[in-house]
């Protein structure tokens, strides 16, 4: 399968400082529009201690929902949406050249049955993992995957320490920061 989707233009919205005392320090917010789905999307890059960005996105129409990261729109255009999300990586590297990145493939909430997918090896994770491994090389980043929690890390090899050590540091930071993931 070829993953050459052009993606869409990312528009910067704002930088939002986080003052909750956690390792999450601030967020960059972006938006983009898909003419295929006719939906706007919000992308956030959450900067954490350890020079790490967590990338998230959701459909803007779900912004007021507690389930915004868990809902699916069933309108397709996944390739372009994911390429657009990944476009924030080179953008952020311009300002944070040693930053590492990561994401979680959220579990899906099915409104019809009011049932939630398990958190291991989610359907989103399987798609994101495949996509990222095709679009991000290994020249700058070392790739790590965490099937059990549906997570994926891109460790920047310019981070100044051994990528394996950096990986452990970031996993510890993330586990401490999100050690009790709430129900949606």
């Amino acid at each position, binding site marked *: 399968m*070829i*993953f*050459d989707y052009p993606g869409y233009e990312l528009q910067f919205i704002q930088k939002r400082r986080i003052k909750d005392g956690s390792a999450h320090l601030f967020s960059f917010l972006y938006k983009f529009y898909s003419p295929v789905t006719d939906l706007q999307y919000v992308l956030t890059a959450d900067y954490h201690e350890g020079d790490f960005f967590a990338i998230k996105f959701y459909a803007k129409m779900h912004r007021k929902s507690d389930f915004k990261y868990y809902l699916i729109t069933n309108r397709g255009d996944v390739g372009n949406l994911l*390429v657009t999300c*990944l*476009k924030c*990586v*080179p953008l952020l*590297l311009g300002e944070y050249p040693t930053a590492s990145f990561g994401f979680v493939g959220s579990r*899906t*909430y*099915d409104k*019809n*049955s*009011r*049932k*939630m*997918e*398990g*958190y291991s090896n989610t359907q989103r994770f399987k798609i994101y*993992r495949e996509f990222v*491994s*095709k*679009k*991000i*090389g*290994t*020249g*700058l*980043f*070392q*790739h*790590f*995957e*965490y*099937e*059990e*929690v549906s*997570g*994926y*890390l891109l460790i920047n090899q310019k981070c100044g320490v051994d990528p394996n050590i950096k*990986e*452990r540091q970031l*996993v*510890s930071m*993330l*586990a*401490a920061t*999100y*050690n*009790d*993931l*709430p*129900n*949606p």
Partner: protein
Amino acid sequence: MQLVSAKLRAKGDRLNWTPLKDVKPVRLNACEIEGKVVHVKETSKQNSQEKPKLLIP
């Protein structure tokens, strides 16, 4: 009857997902989270036409 059959076809039912009321918070423990290095496959030059363009090399 129609309502019942529609509900049976719902994704959460088909895939045997967890009812929302039974979903528990996930407690993360760094020691128990084992990472696996992903070995990104290099496409051979013969297949370079099929090689997707990398966003980051």
